């Protein structure tokens, strides 16, 4: 059995009187696809935001590979190896597909402000290697054909894919996807399922928030169910499918 990559303990976050994340404890094992499901407003995105550092918890702790990352800024969390996508895609619309993904290489390159200003040779070499690695990622994901398109100009399904590609360029240990199938057609959803499987097979742990239940049941190793901010159930897809409480609040709706 492999180790635990992410440990969340008694995490809490309220907005005014609303307890969006209510004492959630979760651990994610390395190399698995773990999904979080739950009705709209259950607190899934908030839970993601807490882990990625986009918002701070009221109480509770988050450990990544045993290191306390509670309250770190998003860029610090990313630097440790956690990368996420957003429920409403957040691409850099006026940059090309290629450039978007090149931004994903930020952490894997190091040219600083001054050396960039001066255009030092080391910089130019690094720029070349960024290009090369992005080109091969584009090739691998079948995105080469649109690499020079501005992101505002590409169809929604591809935007989702580009956002995942950008996150992969970061080479995270843990990839968090927030409803990546939302707005995709059935073919795109199937392709997405395969892609997520491939990502896991590469050794990247995936934390997935998703509404498409059949997708979740198909690809997840484990599932956690959230309802009104609270953890309702956790287990293998088969167990979740049989869990009566889950059926009542979620699958039955």
């Amino acid at each position, binding site marked *: 059995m492999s180790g635990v990559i992410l440990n969340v303990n008694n995490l809490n976050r309220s907005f005014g009187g609303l307890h969006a994340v209510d004492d959630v404890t979760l651990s994610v094992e390395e190399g698995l696809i773990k999904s979080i499901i739950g009705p709209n407003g259950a607190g899934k995105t908030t839970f993601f935001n807490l882990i990625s550092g986009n918002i701070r918890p009221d109480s509770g702790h988050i450990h990544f590979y045993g290191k306390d990352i509670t309250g770190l*800024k*998003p*860029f610090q969390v990313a630097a440790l190896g956690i*990368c996420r996508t957003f429920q409403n895609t957040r691409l850099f619309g006026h940059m090309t597909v290629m450039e978007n993904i090149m*931004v994903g*290489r930020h952490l894997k390159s190091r040219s600083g402000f001054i050396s960039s200003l*001066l255009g030092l040779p080391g910089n130019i070499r690094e720029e070349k290697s960024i290009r090369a690695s992005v080109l091969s990622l584009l090739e691998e994901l079948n995105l080469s054909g649109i690499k020079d398109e501005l992101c505002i100009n590409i169809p929604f399904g591809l935007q989702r894919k580009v956002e995942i590609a950008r996150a992969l360029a970061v080479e995270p240990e843990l990839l968090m996807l927030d409803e990546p199938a939302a707005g995709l057609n059935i073919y795109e959803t199937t392709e997405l399922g395969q892609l997520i499987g491939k990502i896991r097979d590469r050794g990247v742990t995936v934390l997935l928030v998703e509404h498409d239940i059949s997708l979740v049941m198909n690809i997840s190793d484990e599932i956690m169910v959230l309802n009104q901010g609270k953890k309702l159930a956790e287990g293998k897809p088969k167990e979740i499918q049989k869990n009566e409480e889950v059926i009542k609040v979620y699958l039955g709706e």
Partner: protein
Amino acid sequence: MLARYKPLLIVLGIVVLIQLLLSLGGWEFFFTQLIMSAYYSLVVIGLTLLMGYAGQISLGHAGFFAIGGYTSALLTTIDLSGLWDKGTLSLLSSLFITMEQKDPYGNIIYSFSPWVAFVVAILIAVGVAFLIGIPVLRLKGHYLAMATLGFGIIIQTVLLGTTALGAADGISNVPDFTLVPGIQITDRMADRVMNYYIAWFFVLLGLFLIINLLNSRVGRALRSIHGNEEAANSLGINTSRYKLYTFVLSAVLAAAGGVFLTHYLGSIGPSEAGVIKSVRYVAIVAVGGMDNLFGTLLMGNLLNFLSLRGYFGTFDEAVFGIILIGIMLFAPKGILRIKGIKYLSSFIREKLAVFKREKEK
């Protein structure tokens, strides 16, 4: 690989062409305003980087211009004889730290040399930009606009209220700036053409740095912050640090413009720090197309030149306000991208391509 520097060669070509045209045509009196416009465009290109690429507004950049100009003006005009004795001063002069010159009454005085003043001016601009930038860049949109506006107002108020800085009169009798022996920033008639090229040398240097930056990892990070700050941050970009550095860089460019122009004109006054000036810079960046370095460069030089020649008459200040409002309402991407002009330029490009193809046959 060097394709990115091609625009610099084009700019240089145009600069040379204009010089030849004016010199041969006997219109040398235009040089003064062209030189001034060039120095102002140092502010413009820095602000373009900040606004157009990093997506942060500043309505206080005239303040940085003034910090540069006033620091240099003060240090190169103060009398240091009270501070050190004659021997020390002449020793410092031989080290190019101080400089012997005549004050307005004909007495010999020692002041700091322009290069020392330049370095100090830039350091002060860097310091102030950090101090202001750290709290202010947390703000967004119009809050940021107001905070930077406030900064500009404070600088101008301080200048107006400080007698040592000449209060409402500013500082005059600022000496020429000898860059290297034989080449100095001066408004002497005989050195007009040389000064035109000196000014453009600095502008091209600034452009060179910005082009490098934009074509790098850092430049991409800046544009990504403009695109979506939260996403940029989630990809590991320390967005507040990059915004701050860009703010500082644009402040340095503005301050450098202030130093050079002050030595060129031999004086500086508090109006250089004014809100009107800051609005003017923002209007120029907007009309040039925000994220279009050469568009803003062109507009900056054109509009400043027309303004300095007095072609806008009594409407001079209103012109820039009207431009700003007009651009925001009708052409938020700058006039170089208005449909008609875009159409025209693609039409010309098409015709040229056809022409080329026929020639090749």
